[in-house]
């Protein structure tokens, strides 16, 4: 282990401002949702939420610029680099567990509770509450069709989702190629492969939006369409948010590559984003398999 002096930053205003911004976002989101559900005035919630988001955006830009600046001034040691690596790895692990909760919910309803509700299995007595309900997956007919009208169809996995799978898989390849070129210090090619990755990610998001439009407009597959719609949208929706975030991160990295921030042996910011991108990709494979195909 090498032991240069470990860099301990001086006082910082970023965290407390970030806490305030987070509070504004959370309070704004809460007020907005309550107002929407109560059909009352949404102005306060909306303005707090947008204000909080803007503040958070500014703070994150400032905070990260500050860290980048420190890194470029050579304040960080090898040991610091390891701290960042551990930090990013465990952050991704926490994200995996976040998705695990929703996958767990999906597996539970598919394999246990929906069959029980349909009268099958050991807890099939639940069917007595909704007599005549038949279990199926995808669940097209919900127990109470008036409250939760089931969908008339589901997304065909072999069209847009298959294309999206290919898009994300190839984006994982392109981002790795960019990384290889970075290690060889061939910056123009890094820019090229990174830009291609961003394009692939963006096209994915566009396709996903088109898929949602189709689900809502022609298939009646909505958030309110019972448990199939609920699990479908929460899994694909949070994944979509992560792809969007990942694409934004890639854009920042592209900008930094163009500005010449990274060297072949010092580019953890780049690597962290590729880790994140691969994670998003792997989650998609799980989604494609368990949400769309099976």
């Amino acid at each position, binding site marked *: 282990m090498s*032991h240069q*002096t*470990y*860099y*301990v*930053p*001086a*006082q*910082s*205003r*970023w*965290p*407390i401002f*970030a*806490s*305030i911004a*987070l*509070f504004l976002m*959370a*309070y704004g989101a*809460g007020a907005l*949702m*309550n107002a929407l*559900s109560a059909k009352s005035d949404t102005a306060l919630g909306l303005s707090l939420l947008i204000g909080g988001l803007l503040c958070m955006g500014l703070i994150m830009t400032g905070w990260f*610029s500050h860290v980048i600046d420190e890194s470029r001034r050579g*304040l960080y040691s090898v*040991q610091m680099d*390891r*701290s960042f690596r*551990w*930090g990013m790895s*465990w*952050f991704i692990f*926490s994200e995996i*567990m976040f998705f*695990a*909760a929703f996958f*767990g*919910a999906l597996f539970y*309803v598919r394999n246990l*509770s*929906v069959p029980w*509700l349909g009268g099958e299995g050991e*807890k099939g007595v639940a069917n007595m509450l*909704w007599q005549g309900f038949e279990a199926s997956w995808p669940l097209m007919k*919900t*127990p*109470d069709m008036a409250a*939760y009208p089931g969908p008339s169809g589901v997304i065909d996995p072999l069209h847009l989702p298959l294309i999206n799978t290919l898009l994300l898989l190839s984006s994982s390849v392109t981002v790795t190629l960019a990384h290889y070129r970075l290690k060889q210090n061939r910056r123009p090619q890094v820019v090229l492969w990174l830009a291609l990755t961003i394009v692939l990610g963006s096209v994915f998001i566009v396709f996903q939006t088109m898929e949602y439009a189709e689900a809502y407009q022609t298939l009646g597959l*909505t*958030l*309110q*369409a*019972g*448990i*199939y719609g*609920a*699990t479908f*949208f*929460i899994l694909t929706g949070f994944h979509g948010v992560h792809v969007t975030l990942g694409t934004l991160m890639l854009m920042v990295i592209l900008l930094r590559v163009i500005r010449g921030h990274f060297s072949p042996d010092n580019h953890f910011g780049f690597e962290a984003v590729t880790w994140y991108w691969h994670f998003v990709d792997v989650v998609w494979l799980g989604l494609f398999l368990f949400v769309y195909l099976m």
Partner: protein
Amino acid sequence: MGNVEQVVHSAGHHGPAKGLTRWLFTTNHKDIGTLYLLFSLTMFFVGGCMALTIRAELFQPGLQLIRPEFFNQMTTSHGLIMVFGAVMPAFVGLANWLIPIMIGAPDMALPRMNNWSFWILPFAFAMMLSTLLMEGGGPNFGWTFYAPLSTTYAPPSVTFFIFAVHMMGISSIMGAINVIATILNMRTPGMKLMDMPLFVWTWLITAFLLIAVMPVLAGVVTMMLMDIHFGTSFFDAAGGGDPVLFQHVFWFFGHPEVYIMILPAFGVVSEIIPTFARKRLFGYTSMVYATASIALLSFIVWAHHMFAVGMPLAGELFFMYTTMLIAVPTGVKIFNWVATMFRGSMTFETPMLFALAFVVLFTIGGFSGLMLSIAPADFQYHDTYFVVAHFHYVLVPGSVFSIMAAAYYWLPKWTGNMYNETMGKLHFWLSFIGVNVTFFPMHFLGLAGMPRRIPDYALQFADFNMVATLGAFLFGLSQLLFVYNVVCCIRSGKKASNEVWEGSHGLEWTLSSPPPYHSFIEPPIFSHPYKDGHRGE
């Protein structure tokens, strides 16, 4: 905004800033540790006042002081505040103060993020407490917020409760990432994992649990949010969902969560008992493995909270046996503590008294847990005061006593002054008596069938309830002694030596009392406290 932070190359060049900004902008692990501990103490009293409101109402049968709706808000807020506001931040505060000085690091691995982890909390709890003042009242569905009580039948303020939980989750995850990065990356050269003090080990494992399950909590409250505001049917059978799904996801978080609140306590007690027994810890390696086993088992026992809810027989059996299995590593730990004391030269300063009470009373809580793990018996105990007695025995004379023990044990190191030993002992005995008078009768109440979370009860429960209320007020009021003692200790007192305790061992006792603002600017030379010959056997 950017120019406010002067970049200082070496860690040693800046001391504490003056005034309020020191605390708002700090990146120092000791300052942040202090903030966490003070926040926790504040929340301990806020949650404590709620507990006393509950006990006052239950002093006699009938409705005297508060309305049932408000009673429900009190039980809910009391639980949430004690779990997320008092116990967890106290242990994070201890981690912040102690881990760097125990492993010979200059600070935590990611100091700015450390500040953020803390400062999210006051905002999160401000939001959570503000729900009590909102139209329709605060959360009233119990700290476990089971759907559909927390979805279909919840007051509108539940939305803010959900976002407060999200904020606490962010804070906990970042705090835990920091702890892991610090432990794995910042140890002084020569300190291997199996050389680390047990407090550091238990926190490493706790941090892993936090990162693994806080996102699951975020997931379950997100599903609640979707059900409440966006028309999904995760927890509504009318749409094909299942309210029991809520309980599964919640307890997948919830069971590791209870170990998050006890593993660091194990670590604290494993530091204190060897010091005052003047022996090295018996079975260090088995302690580490036992802690890891408890943590891993915690992922496969969650449904023992749900025996009465309706599960296939195979599920009941599986969760019953895995739960019982936890008694094995826990028994190893209890055995090791007792074996450490066996033939030791024991003295009974306040930290040791709290640690001893921990061992005895936590074991009582463990045994009632074993009773509850028996599925057929649990059908009887479920949702009675027996459960309340059980988890209060593991959390109050368990977690809280270990936090008290830690505070007394390390206060001289933190402040440079000794606390008042007589007052400390008085605090201990009043707390010890108060805790047992409060919670022991609840076992009898529960076995006799008194349900939990009710503001009124049948007449035959009156006597024990009266006793419990008297005990609660004794316990609550005696905590003021603790505050007084801490304040006195910060302001003045006999100067503490570097070692503080005759039998102390570990790197934190090589620093001055109080330690310098930046703990170890140069990594210290590490020699194993248990292997260096002049201490222990």
